[in-house]
């Protein structure tokens, strides 16, 4: 029996340093997670993820790339909380009661490092929940698992970096200043001149692989190799933390440091090699029509063709196209019944690609999303139906439907319009660069009312969408004081007339429409004539406003034929 055992009868039960470290980890993890900085950061991260989901979903390739950002916010809070906890462990002469405890600072540091496990689990749950919600939302494209895994690793990365900086610079400003430094690094890395000068170099240095300025479809992000780099950094930070203060295992620590640096090197080299091997031209070719790797399906006599990864949208397109054709007369849209996806957004990224459009409904990669990727609620569905209805009433055979771009109206509010390619400038097989704000105008054409009615007949939500567009304007319309401002390419009164038709029994309207189909779809038939044919009354002041409109917009407008 040793001397210590004589004094300490429980010596045989004395715990190992690891057992102590695990208990400390439990306490520290709870404190780190309940630290105000962590809680605030987590709340902001949840909000950011929610906003991101609402903005980006359900297109997973973008979401998985962006979902690391909310975790970074969480990581910032963790870093602050952990550096503070680490400072608590280290500051001597501040807590003599701790200094004389038999547990040495090294074990306390290990306890803190182990405490990273809890935030990692939180990050796993957080990312998992986000992915699950996205998956339930019928997403398209594929999620990058390495991207998702980067979230939990970043949580560990932040905790262990917090421990390291807290141990070496034990001040209450260390954590916040480190966060500021990391944000600065991110901002600097994103600077154009740096990318231009050093190419891929800055990309592997940051905590996550940023989305390129290129569209995600043709962007390359070596997320797997970057994850290795991050794991190496976690090891480096952990060793740096343990190197502070007395330790009898310096050799082991230096060995671990070298091993971690090797992992970092592997991650860096892996990323550089992956970038070098990436064949952008081949990927781009798979998205460029007509040779693109389309996935096509024929549903209800219409052929739907989606670009790689977007095939799950085919069913959604069909749900918004089929009902229009069911309601319209049989001979509506007799030819080229095709809905095809084009990589339109690729061209928005500063690239000058040339696209060849085929007859039919054309849609883009950002169907369901508007400017900035903002989810469009039901707008994209209505747009797809309206595009089909437009073809049905013979509006044009070449157009882009459901690609929503922003138009600023005079009062500064954003409005979205259904984009139509000028009929005169695009013919089948003719290559053209799409120019926004050039579209044909159906102003005061009776077939606009029919097209809106057809689109609004698809579902209650479609009808509701039209209601929302004229909400609050009924009074103006009823007393003739309405102002004929732009609402897409239609006039507000045409929406109003379509809405009147939707309130009537569908068979009755359908019969009238079928009866006068040839007249109603004639470009020369005015809205006023169509209204009378369909048995409705004109709004007060309709004729006067039409005259003013035609005078006002006669210059520069391309009339739809």
């Amino acid at each position, binding site marked *: 029996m040793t001397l210590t055992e004589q004094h300490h009868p429980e010596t045989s039960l004395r715990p190992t340093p690891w057992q102590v470290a695990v*208990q400390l980890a439990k*306490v520290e993890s709870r404190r780190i997670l309940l630290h105000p900085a962590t809680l605030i950061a987590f709340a902001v991260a949840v909000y950011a993820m929610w906003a991101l989901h609402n903005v980006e979903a359900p297109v997973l390739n973008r979401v998985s790339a962006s979902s690391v950002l909310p975790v970074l916010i969480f990581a910032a809070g963790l870093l602050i909380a952990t550096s503070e906890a680490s400072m608590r462990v280290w500051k001597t002469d*501040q807590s003599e009661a701790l200094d004389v405890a*038999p547990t040495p600072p090294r074990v*306390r540091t290990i306890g803190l490092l182990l405490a990273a496990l809890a935030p990692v689990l939180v990050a796993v749950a957080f990312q998992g929940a986000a992915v699950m919600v996205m998956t339930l939302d019928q997403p398209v494209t594929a999620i990058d698992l390495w991207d998702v895994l980067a979230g939990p690793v970043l949580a560990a990365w932040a905790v262990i970096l917090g421990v390291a900086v807290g141990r070496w610079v034990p001040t209450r400003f260390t954590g916040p200043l480190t966060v500021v430094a990391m944000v600065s690094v991110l901002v600097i890395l994103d600077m154009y001149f740096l990318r231009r000068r050093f190419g891929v170099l800055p990309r592997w240095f940051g905590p996550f692989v940023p989305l390129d300025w290129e569209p995600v479809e043709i962007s390359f992000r070596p997320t797997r190799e970057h994850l290795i780099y991050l794991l190496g950094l976690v090891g480096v930070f952990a060793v740096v933390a343990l190197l502070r203060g007395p330790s009898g295992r310096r050799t082991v620590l230096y060995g671990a440091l070298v091993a971690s640096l090797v992992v970092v090197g592997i991650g860096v080299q892996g990323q550089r090699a992956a970038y070098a091997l990436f064949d952008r031209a081949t990927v781009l070719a798979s998205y460029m029509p007509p040779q693109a790797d389309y996935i096509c399906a024929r549903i209800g006599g219409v052929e739907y063709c989606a670009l790689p990864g977007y095939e799950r949208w085919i069913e959604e397109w069909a749900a918004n196209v089929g009902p229009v054709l069911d309601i319209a007369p049989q001979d509506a849209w007799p030819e080229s019944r095709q809905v095809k996806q084009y990589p339109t957004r690729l061209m928005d990224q500063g690239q000058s690609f040339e696209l060849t459009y085929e007859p039919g409904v054309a849609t883009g990669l950002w169907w369901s999303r508007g400017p900035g990727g903002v989810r469009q609620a039901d707008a994209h569905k209505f747009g797809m139906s309206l595009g089909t209805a437009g073809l049905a009433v013979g509006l044009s055979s070449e157009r882009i439907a459901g690609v929503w771009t922003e138009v600023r109206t005079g009062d500064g509010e954003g409005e979205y319009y259904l984009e139509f390619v000028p009929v005169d400038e695009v013919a089948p097989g003719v290559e053209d660069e799409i120019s926004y704000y050039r579209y044909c105008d159906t102003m005061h054409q009776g077939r606009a009312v029919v097209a809106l009615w057809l689109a609004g007949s698809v579902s209650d939500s479609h009808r509701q969408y039209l209601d929302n567009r004229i909400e609050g304007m009924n009074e103006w319309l009823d007393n003739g004081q309405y102002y004929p401002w732009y609402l897409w390419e239609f006039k507000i009164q045409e929406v109003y007339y379509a809405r009147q038709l939707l309130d009537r029994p569908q068979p009755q309207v359908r019969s009238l429409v079928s009866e006068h189909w040839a007249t109603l779809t004639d470009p020369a038939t005015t809205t006023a004539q169509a209204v009378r044919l369909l048995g409705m009354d004109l709004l007060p002041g309709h004729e006067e406003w039409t005259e003013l409109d035609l005078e006002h917009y006669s210059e520069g407008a391309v009339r739809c034929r």
Partner: protein
Amino acid sequence: MSNEVHIDDLRLKYGSVRALDGVTFTLGSGITGILGPNGAGKTTLLRCIATVLAADSGKLDIFGLDPDRPSQRTDVRRLLGYMPQEPGFYQSFTCFDFLDYIAILKEQVDPTARHEEVRRVIERTGLSEKSQTKIKKLSGGMRRRLALAQSLLGDPRLLILDEPTAGLDPEQRFRFREMVSGLAVDRVVFLSTHQTEDVAAICDRVLVMHSGQMRFDGTPRDLARLAEGRVWLTDVRPSDAHIHWRTAEGVFRGVGDVPQGAEIIAPTLEDGYLMIVGAAAFEDEAA
């Protein structure tokens, strides 16, 4: 098996100041108090015994263990409870959480047993009602109790208390004395204080320290006896006493040479302490 703490010729300097100047004594079971003016070296001595500080020279033997040797220092730490003047509380912790944290550092890894131990010391120090209160919301008296509570975790064989009654009101000091008195059984308790009443009330033995040197080592009664026949009362302010002051009754009480016509009274422990400290102060002045 040793149950004593031996301090042998301990020396430590802060620059040119001799904080410990050849201190030698032995601590056994029971409560030993150490008195001394500010700067006497009491806290330095306690910190050396508590393994916070290493002396420049001399030898410390704590229950047969040498704290200068790293392996044995940890063993010493397993046996001691230390209540420093400034425990360095984590303000955002509750009392329970703080004690739980310290208990882990004292290698208590079984959560059930540890929590029971925490509750035990909380109850013993009268902190039950404040168990879930954050430390930043505690009064000074409550914080002293908490500091004592953390030192009691693990039922240490050596308890070192540095100024445990500082900042406490009379009622709290009374309670504290009661608490500490109950701890002395089969345990070495070593406390420093300015309060001679504390020593008189709870200590079996008293040390007096001045300028890094031990000036007295004996029982409280022995310390009081040092002033036997040299404590007096008089109606007029004396001119040649070491130390004197006016009492609540309006007469002058003094310690030292008895003035003519003064009434000699029975000395207290404080009188003995003042005799030593006063004499030491004169020596320092003369030096």
